[in-house]
């Protein structure tokens, strides 16, 4: 069975846009990105292309330096590609689209220490035009959904690292985006906290009907969270392989990670990352 297609069929017309439901939310089309360095251009990305379907969770993995974050920043409209384009909801991306939120790796830099937790979450909502009351209600709901009810009056720096990243996730969710981009979202927290945060993502996707793209260097995390894993080659990067993850849902840290299928996928993705030429040892 394919959980992605099932979900898409379950929610016809939910997104409320004119674009057809079958159309992917994101089309990444032949992206190139090179940086000028002394001694000629340094090609980071050399023709990356893939689609992201609505309400799908997709991870991008690859060897170090494979331009994963570059691709994410181009999708977010924070970086211009040298060549190629990204279609978001049918429209070419030129600057960050309004229906998009990003959770960055470094929560300590992306949260504002002079605002309360609530202030951090409401700031984008107020900019979006919500009234003070609406913004507050939406923010409190989002904070509750990430397990931070009652913490809204604290400052971010009074919270642990994991909790600060929850604030960043709440801020993103409260913004009610169609697409949530996460750039190494759990790389700065300890292993236990990391599992807690991982287990936050899929319920949020189900509850808020959001599409999620995660950049991570953690293969287990990518498989655990995703419907598909996109493996990039070393730079100049292209898509090496897109690995569908047909693990049953709901996923749990014990059952899912002990599933033999998980081990097989892990082996496949890891060998694609570690030895890009092998084309996935235990492939098919």
């Amino acid at each position, binding site marked *: 069975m394919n959980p992605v297609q099932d979900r898409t069929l379950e929610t016809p017309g939910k997104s409320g846009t004119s674009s057809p439901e079958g159309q992917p939310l994101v089309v990444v089309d032949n992206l190139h990105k090179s940086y000028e360095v002394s001694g000629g251009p340094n090609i980071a990305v050399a023709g990356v292309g893939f689609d992201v379907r609505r309400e799908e969770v997709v991870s991008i993995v690859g060897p170090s330096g494979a331009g994963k974050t570059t691709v994410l920043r181009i999708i*977010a*409209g*924070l970086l211009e590609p040298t060549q190629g384009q990204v279609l978001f909801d049918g429209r070419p991306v030129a*600057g*960050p689209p*309004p229906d*998009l*939120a*990003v959770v*960055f790796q*470094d929560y300590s*830099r*992306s949260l*504002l*220490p*002079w*605002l309360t937790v609530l202030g951090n979450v409401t*700031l*984008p909502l*107020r*900019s*979006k035009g919500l009234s003070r009351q609406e913004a507050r209600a939406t923010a409190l709901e989002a904070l509750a959904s990430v397990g931070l009810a009652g913490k809204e009056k604290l*400052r*971010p*720096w009074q919270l642990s690292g994991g909790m600060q990243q929850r604030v960043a996730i709440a*801020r993103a969710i409260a*913004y009610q985006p169609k697409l949530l981009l996460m750039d190494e979202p759990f790389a700065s927290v300890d292993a236990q906290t990391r599992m807690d945060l991982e287990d936050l993502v899929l319920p949020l996707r189900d509850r808020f009907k959001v599409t999620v793209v995660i950049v991570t260097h953690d293969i287990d995390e990518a498989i655990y969270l995703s419907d598909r894993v996109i493996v990039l080659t070393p730079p100049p990067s292209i898509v090496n392989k897109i690995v569908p993850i047909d693990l049953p849902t709901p996923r749990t840290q014990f059952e899912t990670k002990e599933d033999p299928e998980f081990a097989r996928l892990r082996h496949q993705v890891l060998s694609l990352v570690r030895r890009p030429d092998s084309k996935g040892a235990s492939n098919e």
Partner: protein
Amino acid sequence: MKAPAKTRLPARVAGRASKVAWELILPVALLLGYQLWSASADNPYFPTLSEIAVAFRENWMGQGFERNVVPSLSNLFRGYGLGLLVGIPIGVAIGRLLVLRRAFGPIFAFLLAVPPVAILPLFLLVLGVGPQMQIGVIVLAVSVYVLIATADGVGAISPALGDIEDVYGIGPLRRLFLITLPAASPHILAAARVALSLAVLVMVVSEMVGASRGIGAVTLLAQQSFAYSQMWAGMVLVAILGIGLNLIFGWGEKQMLRRAGLETQLSTAGGGN
């Protein structure tokens, strides 16, 4: 639980007291030494502490305060305030716009290199003797210094915050007041503190060259009319003013940064709460 808490508080007080005591030893010894020496030396250039104290009361308290200290402070604060009002907004604009930073960079580097006191003759020429001239020089000194530091501070804001602004479409006013200014505030406040000392310096010098009233004017006049105790009293007042303003500003700065959650970024010593 209770026992260590009980012993710790007096211990901390004792620790602080001994620290203060150590810090006081040298200044007190110096003052004492000066008093003994000046009393025995009978050198008119170096009056005793009690003579200076008498002159201080005569010159700077009561009528003298109104006549000479009030106008000085009024010029100081008006010039300082105006300098901040000019320097911070222009600094923010220049910090945010790379084009402006490039265009104005050399000019500000030049202005920063010229001691504000060196521009005094020009101000005397154009604005004449009087408070306009004094305030004008203070405004120039303060605004140039604060402007450059603000531009640096705004330019040094983490690009991560720019990403947040862009992704979440934060409007220009919210950007300015909720992100840019708070993020640059450690730089701005540090510069404003240095600029305050600079303003005191410029105030005194401008009164020495172009005023008949005010702390600088009275102090220089005392020196020229052989009233050395009064000259010393002037120096003491300027010192008290400088230390007092710096202490008040430092306290306010610390409170603001603590409330903004930025304190940890400044003092790595930490251990605040």
